[in-house]
């Protein structure tokens, strides 16, 4: 194994440790009473974790620009679908 391989393995373990830390943060954060911000914080942390998994474990950071943009577009569309549906029911039926 070259130094390059050892470095990337240390990187993967660091990402994994980060993911575990963020999981602990989610659980801790849910104990605080932030009102509706609770779900916002939970989703932000989850998205941060998902980004780490996509970039490093799914090797998106090593892929071409084209594939990266496709993934970004798909996730943006997903966020729009879920977000707009949510805002619609949140505002329309009071």
């Amino acid at each position, binding site marked *: 194994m070259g130094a390059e*391989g050892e470095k990337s393995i240390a990187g*993967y373990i660091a990402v*994994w440790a980060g993911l575990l830390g963020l999981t602990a943060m989610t*659980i801790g954060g849910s104990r605080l009473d932030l009102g509706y911000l609770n779900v916002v914080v939970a989703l932000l942390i989850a998205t941060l974790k998902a980004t780490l998994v996509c970039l490093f*474990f799914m090797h998106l950071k090593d892929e071409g620009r084209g594939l990266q943009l496709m993934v970004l577009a798909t996730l943006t569309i997903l966020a729009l679908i879920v977000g707009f549906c949510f805002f619609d029911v949140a505002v329309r039926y009071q």
Partner: protein
Amino acid sequence: MSEQSRDRAAATLGMWLFLFTEILLFGGLFVLYAVYRRRYPLEFHAASGLLNLPIGAANTVILLTSSLAVVLALAAIRRGSGRQSLLWLWATVGLGALFLVNKLFEWQEKFSHHLYPNSPELLARPEGDSVFFSLYFFMTGLHASHVLIGLALILVVMQRIRQGRIDRERHTLLFNAGLYWHLVDVIWIYLFPLFYLIS
């Protein structure tokens, strides 16, 4: 770009396109979840408290660790060590199976408390409770079936490593199986706070 790396790029693109359809499948369910959580905030909060947080948290750690094992298996095969790759994949299979066993105990506990879709107990409760548990069983059930498929895929990969059909030069199947496994992990990353941690 050499012919081989072009093939690899195409296979990766194809796998991502499939993952996009999976994202939309779960995305539709997250829409349902968002709408109903908005409609029944108090019931969702109360019902969430009935879920087993320690098991949910343990399963999160288990899945994250299994993802690490898949990545290390890929790194091992890229170094040319099929033997080490197999060891990491065994770890993945073990962790994935452990996740499912935990899930089984968790569901069993719910069933023994008469909390399952359309149970007389749930029908007698407010509608929001019933909706919460229907979503919980359907979404975690669909997710668990993905874990099962991922496990089968990884066993196929392990067989091919043993046969020498996946090695340092040709490991696209391992790479793509890894993508699938990580996506299942990402979905759980969202399911966990949305079901177990409603404050």
